[in-house]
């Protein structure tokens, strides 16, 4: 690791969600596209302001639901009517009505697994390292600070120009962070 560490981006630290939102809107207007915001709680409308696409998690969960439902039907039908048919109280080997509770439960179970682990996957969790943790004030992000990072890979990025731009947005603190 003898190479000079590269720069991940420029951090601008704000004290309120409103200032962060204004800065994001201004940055988009100024032509920046590679940015990320870090906040202590979800901020309404931030995805639209950043031009982020809606989460695809819902579609993944739908696949999970379908899988759960299919497993439940096949499991009950195959075990009860194919592999080991057993007459119990004269009931049919397989019927839809008594199968509904387990169809429901397995649908919910697999959907929930996909919702949680899909979210982990989309968010890249668990993660041991991320450049934002190089920011000297990163610990306050989970408390009460609202941070905007304009990444160095942005075409518009320019160490001094971007710094002046973010300072003008009312950031309390500006810092270059290593990748």
């Amino acid at each position, binding site marked *: 690791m003898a190479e000079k560490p590269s720069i991940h981006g420029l951090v601008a630290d704000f004290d309120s969600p409103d200032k962060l939102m204004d800065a994001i809107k201004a940055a988009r207007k100024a032509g920046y596209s590679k940015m990320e915001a870090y906040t202590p*709680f979800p901020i309404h409308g931030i995805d639209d302001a950043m031009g982020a696409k809606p989460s695809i998690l819902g579609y993944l*969960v739908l696949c999970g639901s379908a899988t759960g439902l299919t497993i439940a039907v096949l499991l009950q039908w195959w075990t009860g009517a194919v592999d080991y048919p057993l007459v119990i109280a004269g009931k049919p080997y397989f019927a839809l009505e008594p199968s509904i509770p387990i169809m429901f*439960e397995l649908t919910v*179970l697999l959907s929930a697994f996909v919702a949680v682990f899909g*979210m982990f996957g989309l968010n890249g969790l668990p993660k041991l*390292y991320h450049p934002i943790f190089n920011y000297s004030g990163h*610990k306050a992000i*989970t408390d009460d600070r609202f941070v905007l990072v304009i990444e160095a890979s942005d075409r518009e990025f320019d160490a001094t120009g971007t710094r002046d731009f973010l300072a003008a947005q009312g950031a309390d603190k500006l810092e270059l962070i290593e990748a």
Partner: protein
Amino acid sequence: MAELSHAQEMKERLTPSLTSGHPSYHDVTEAVSIISEVKTHRNWYIALAITTSITGIMGLMLAYLVATGVGVWGNNGPVGWGWDITNFVFWIGIGHAGTLISAILFLFRQKWRTSINRFAEAMTLFAVACAGIYPAVHIGRPWRAYWLFPIPNEFLSMWQNFRSPLLWDVFAVSTYATVSALFWYVGLIPDLATFRDRATTKGKQLAYGVASLGWRGSATHWKNYEKAYMILAGLSTPLVLSVHTIVSFDFAVSILPGWHTTIFPPYFVAGAIFSGFAMVVTLMVIVRWIYKVEHLVTMTHLENMNKVILATGTIVGYAYATEFFTAWYSGNPYESYVFFVSRATGPYAWAYWSMISCNVISPQFFWFKKLRTSLPFMFVISIIVNIGMWFERFVIIATSLHRDYLPASWGYFRPTFVDILTFFGTFGLFLTLFVFFTRFLPIIAISEVKGMMAQTHHEEHFLDEAVAASEGKQPVGAAH
């Protein structure tokens, strides 16, 4: 659970910001984090010693049961289901309020749920853990408990009976436990990251760091997180209703008079919410007092919960009346016998009328604002309600079974000391888990409370507005 002398230390750190009713984001972080950050108090160890001793009694009783057989319980013909199923349904029911608060009130955008949902979800998990013990041990050979699931193995040369409500129950309860745990954990991640960032020792940094999975609160994180949270709330809502519905199928799908009734699913769900909210009130009154979080868990929260107790208690009372009407109107002598003799006037009348007094009469006091906003009064009522709900399950089970069609096989259920001490011990387990929870985890959802504050735009008016909004006087945000 007492850490009273912490009060002073906390008060010093919080004054005047929280006590004056104008908290900032940082104040919320402080208020919740400090509970886990102050030096462990002697009283905490005392509380832990007491609760683990009670859990130990349960452990001994279960060991005795496993070593000897289920004959150590009072279950015997004709009452083949005794305290085991009663206690199982009792604990599962308590869990329901947690899911209701975390999922259903979330979907209905009930802002007041925010400061109690974490706590209520924890209660769900711990109650389900207590409930889970009973089905695991009542099968007689707990080491074969995996036979309940369709796991191919060399000993059981057949499949489970998927046409049986008891197997539906296995799936319902295990799904419920799993989904509740996932929901709870997802909600915890951002707050665990807060704890990680405030950690002062290497050990804490590592523990909270691992548990928070490297959460960094980026907009992308929150986007997927909020979606996942919404989906989990949407899944948990029908799930919680299905769990007690399926638990009620254990009874309703049988052909026994007193059990074979279509009113059971809604009646069981209402009863579960009723008992669960009562348990949340019991615990919340204690926690507010010990941890001084009155400004996050306000009287409005407690009053709203008492209103839910009143509503569901009335529904439960209506269900009891309907059962009697149906028994009479059906003209079925066996059905009528169960209600008019076995329950209301027979040898179990004492249990039946205890149930009526606790469940139907006691919540009616909450019509009066003065009573539903009185801490000592609501504390007592919430405990009475849970006693009543335990009696409800016992009455349903014992009265329906104790008199068979053949008078020669009539009997009367008496619990043994093993029954009693095992049940007592489950409270130890429940409280032990709580003692650990309140010590090491954020007991209030920090990021959610902050998000709620931000929604009101002006932090200064957060508390006033939360109160006004939940009372329906004005929409949030209108005060500016």
